[in-house]
């Protein structure tokens, strides 16, 4: 690999920054001046996705599925309806499908064509999810991608990759770690990481909680 050369990974936005700052400011000003947007709307949006909606939503779904067998069954039958009862709703969550990880099947979610992601339960996607390495390699060689995350699965585990090519949004329900019997939903939710709901990680172990 020619890794000694300069790369342009998505996260080197330093060089673009000042130019992009100017360009977005120009657009925003024009749209404001033409009356297409209300500055307060912009603030609501940023506030919503920066502060309110995030993987904590998804973690609540997973924790509930771990303790409540009826909810769990419903979640896998009709993710959209089951999740709606938790009142997140929202954009890019209209057709949510929950995927069950088991000792024999591990699910992973990608969008090779753009960056489709279940915003309603996970918030906005991290940079790596939108990056070329992830989008290119996950469908062809998911195990090597898992290795980038330090995760090595048993050789005979079936890996199911879900390429979100349409309006369906996927969330992975990771396996419940052992040693968590009798835990409350709130405490269980702390074990559920964002990556475990994308499929690039597993839920935390009890000992991982400080």
């Amino acid at each position, binding site marked *: 690999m020619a890794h000694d050369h300069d790369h342009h990974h998505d996260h080197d936005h330093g060089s673009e920054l000042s130019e992009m700052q100017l360009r977005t400011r120009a657009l925003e000003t024009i749209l404001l001046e033409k009356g297409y947007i209300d500055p307060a709307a912009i603030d609501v*949006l*940023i506030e919503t996705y920066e502060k309110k909606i995030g993987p904590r939503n998804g973690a609540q779904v997973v924790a509930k599925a771990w303790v409540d067998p009826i909810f769990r069954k419903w979640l896998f039958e009709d993710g959209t309806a089951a999740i709606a009862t938790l009142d997140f*709703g929202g954009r890019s969550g209209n057709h949510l499908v929950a995927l069950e990880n088991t000792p024999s099947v591990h699910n992973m979610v990608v969008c090779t*064509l753009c960056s489709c992601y279940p915003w309603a339960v996970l918030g906005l996607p991290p940079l790596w999810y939108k990056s070329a390495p992830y989008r290119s390699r996950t469908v062809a060689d998911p195990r090597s991608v898992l290795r980038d995350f330090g995760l090595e699965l048993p050789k005979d585990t079936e890996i199911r990759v879900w390429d979100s*090519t*349409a309006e369906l949004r996927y969330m992975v329900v990771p396996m419940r770690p052992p040693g968590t019997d009798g835990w409350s939903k709130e405490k269980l939710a702390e074990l559920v990481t964002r990556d475990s709901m994308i499929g690039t990680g597993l839920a935390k172990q009890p000992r991982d909680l400080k």
Partner: protein
Amino acid sequence: MNGAADMGGMHGFGPVVPEQNEPVFHADWEKSAFALNMVTGVARLWNLDAFRFKRECIPPAQYLNLSYYGLWTVALEQMMLEYGIATPEELAAGHAIAPVKKAARMVTAADMTTMVRCGSPYNRPAPAPARFKVGDQVRAKNMHPKTHTRLPRYARGHTGNIVRVVGCHVFPDSNASNAGENPHWLYTVRFDGRELWGADSDPTVRVCIEAWEPYLEPL
């Protein structure tokens, strides 16, 4: 189109590099870029498929060297020009110069709250019964439209199984070209990794895509 957006199965991009404690946005301009795209979508200046197509049309050499929100911004500028929302002079000046061409529909904070809650569903009443059922074997067509499509290159020509009948949805291939919503049945199709990547590939891998009925043919 077979553009830079269609990355599935490409080599050479290097490792996936997760960022520790990644913030939601990496700069203030990213917040604006994000919000501006939401707002222009709700204002129905154009549809989401048309906006996706515009992003894919960015020449690959440029596409692959832009950051995520950089892509959004470049595409947004293009859309504003193409749909007559702004002129090149206005983009350069950073101010409105010409009067508004279309009647502006002001998007308010309340609109945004509704949008965040309700989203924008894409399912539609079915004009005809679904052609395939769960378990059917299908082949993804070998098609190479120059326009927007959601059928990735790596799946084309390959055989898989229907694992879910999702419903009847807006067809992005026509919606992106402003040729109407033209709803079609949507399916989840599962492919064996070896079918997609050849006999040497990992036998434990399966890949699922969503495919509209016009992408598929029976076996």
